[in-house]
């Protein structure tokens, strides 16, 4: 996808072809005559095993968890608070203040930690909200069709025509500079591609015979959706969620960079890059470090997502040369 746009589900085309995952495993063979022990592997274990074997994804996952944890609690652990007024101004980096002190007396390392915290919070919140809403709406649209489906399709059409960044800028301008509001705005549009993906999955699965069988057995709609349809879509949902985290952080930082996202007195990695750019000659590290953080978080998330995608749907057997 080209950021800062919405995560585009169409880009998942050739990569994700999800087949019917409900086929039961053969398990132990009847009537074989001799004693055989066949290991039964559930679908879940197979997927987990494939993911764990993906070295790049594992390394990325570890790195990502460290970064996220560090961002979320780093600020509280560091000895200085980002808003704390220090008696010095404009100091270069020292051991005491690894990134120096800015011209209004704040510890810059603390600011970077704070920026990381806010950006990560926004990204995680956006991912959570948009995934939840997207899954629910997509499932309803795909299963019941009708008015929910029509509305969903029309709304998503709307945002194909107007660049999403522009809409974000507009809403951010109106709503102000709080991180929570910003997350809501971004989530308000990021749920749509996932809804379309879930809708497509549900549409293709609802006609299958085992769904009819479940209905004949008296299963309620909720049970059918929850136990039969959604578990098959879980692969897409999880992969999409990781993409959302990456695009969300890129979107939020872009808005903040332009001055219409998280604003002073709070800070974000995007805002820090902007400030760092102004001070490029004297304090290039202020430009580089927030940027590296953004890149690393997005990159590791993307690798994890790729590993997950491979785990859920290995396209071809890796052949050795």
């Amino acid at each position: 996808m080209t950021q800062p746009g919405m995560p585009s589900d169409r880009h998942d085309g050739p990569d994700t072809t999800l087949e019917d995952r409900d086929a039961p495993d053969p398990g132990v063979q009847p009537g074989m005559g001799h004693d055989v022990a066949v290991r039964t592997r559930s679908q879940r274990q197979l997927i987990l095993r494939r993911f764990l074997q993906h070295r790049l994804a594992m390394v990325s996952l570890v790195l990502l968890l460290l970064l996220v944890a560090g961002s979320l609690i780093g600020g509280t652990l560091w000895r200085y608070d980002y808003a704390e007024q220090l008696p010095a101004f404009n100091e270069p980096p020292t051991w005491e203040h690894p990134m120096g002190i800015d011209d209004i007396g704040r510890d810059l390392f603390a600011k970077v930690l704070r920026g990381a915290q806010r950006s990560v919070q926004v990204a995680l919140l956006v991912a959570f909200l948009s995934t939840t809403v997207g899954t629910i709406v997509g499932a309803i649209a795909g299963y019941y069709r009708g008015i929910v489906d029509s509305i969903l399709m029309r709304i998503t059409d709307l945002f194909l025509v107007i660049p999403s960044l522009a809409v974000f800028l507009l809403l951010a301008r109106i709503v102000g500079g709080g991180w929570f509001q910003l997350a809501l705005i971004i989530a308000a549009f990021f749920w749509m591609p996932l809804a379309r993906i879930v809708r497509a999955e549900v549409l293709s699965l609802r006609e299958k015979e085992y769904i009819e069988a479940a209905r004949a057995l008296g299963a309620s709609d909720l049970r059918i959706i929850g136990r039969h349809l959604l578990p098959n879509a879980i692969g897409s949902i999880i992969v999409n969620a990781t993409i959302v985290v990456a695009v969300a952080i890129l979107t939020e930082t872009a808005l903040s960079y332009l001055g219409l996202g998280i604003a002073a007195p709070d800070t974000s990695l995007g805002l820090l890059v902007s400030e760092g750019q102004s001070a490029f000659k004297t304090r290039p590290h202020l430009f580089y470090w927030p940027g590296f953080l953004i890149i690393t978080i997005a990159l590791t998330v993307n690798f994890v997502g790729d590993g997950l995608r491979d785990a859920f749907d290995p396209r071809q057997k890796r052949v050795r040369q």
Partner: protein
Amino acid sequence: MLGFVVRRLIVSIIVLFVASVLIYFTVTSFGDPLGELRSRNPPVPEHVIEARRVAIGLDKPAHERYLTWASGVVRMDFGDTLQGQPVNELLWRRLQRTMRMVIASVVLSLVLAVGVGVLSATRQYSKTDYFFTFSGFLFLSMPVFWLAALLKEFAAIRVNQLVGRRIIYTTGSESPRLTGDFWDRMANYAGHLVLPTIALALISYAAWSRYQRSSMLDVMESDYVKLARAKGASRKRVVFRHGLRNALIPLTTVVAIDFGAVFGGAIITEQVFGWSAMGNLLIQGLRDYDVNVVLAWMMVTGVLVIVFNLIADLLYGVLDPRIRQ
């Protein structure tokens, strides 16, 4: 197929109209152009504020203002800015500049994406493949503004030093008071275009090249490619005439969908490089809560996206005969 395209066009226009209503009422309901005046210290006298209010036309109800605006748009008149300047005047020159960047970056992106996609697919699992896959991921994870800023602060100076004179510019879309013949002007434009285009292109190329690689791999596995080989066609012929020719088809759709995102990215690169173009217009309009400016931006961009999508649809019909009935 023509019917399909026409229907999509009509739907797009309706969507654009609906969007205009939504955006108009959002901006006017939540954005107060007089907010800045009201919050000044020492406070501005009430009658001055009121006079200003009437001057802008805020005394009329919202739907009436919308209709005035809409009737203007139909005549291609986007109204006046808050400062009284006709929006049209501002629009066209800025639009030209933005279009230069958008078109240049889409072209560059496409060339890179197809090239890298084909290369990666034909050398699957090789070092080349891994390099491009990794760098693709890297650019996908890179903020446009950071890359643009990096190019601006870093690359320009180095290249100019290397060459010995200033060929790459970092501010604006062209040098002010530019004189000279056509080629001088083109060179100047190009010098200003290089960095923003690269920044914008590298990000979209990354997504498209991954897609192209995947599409290419799919196509190369197909039976008709195998048949082409069984006919005795050379590897090169098979890859390009049979493989790529088919692999390009889905790319058309992908690129069409991403047009909006390219315009969004352009806003950012324009800000970084200080271009006086559409992006700047939008941001200024948002800062002032100038509804005519904001809407003009939205409508013009929307129309452009629709036009590009139309071209992509037609191109798809050319590339894929199956669609033509």
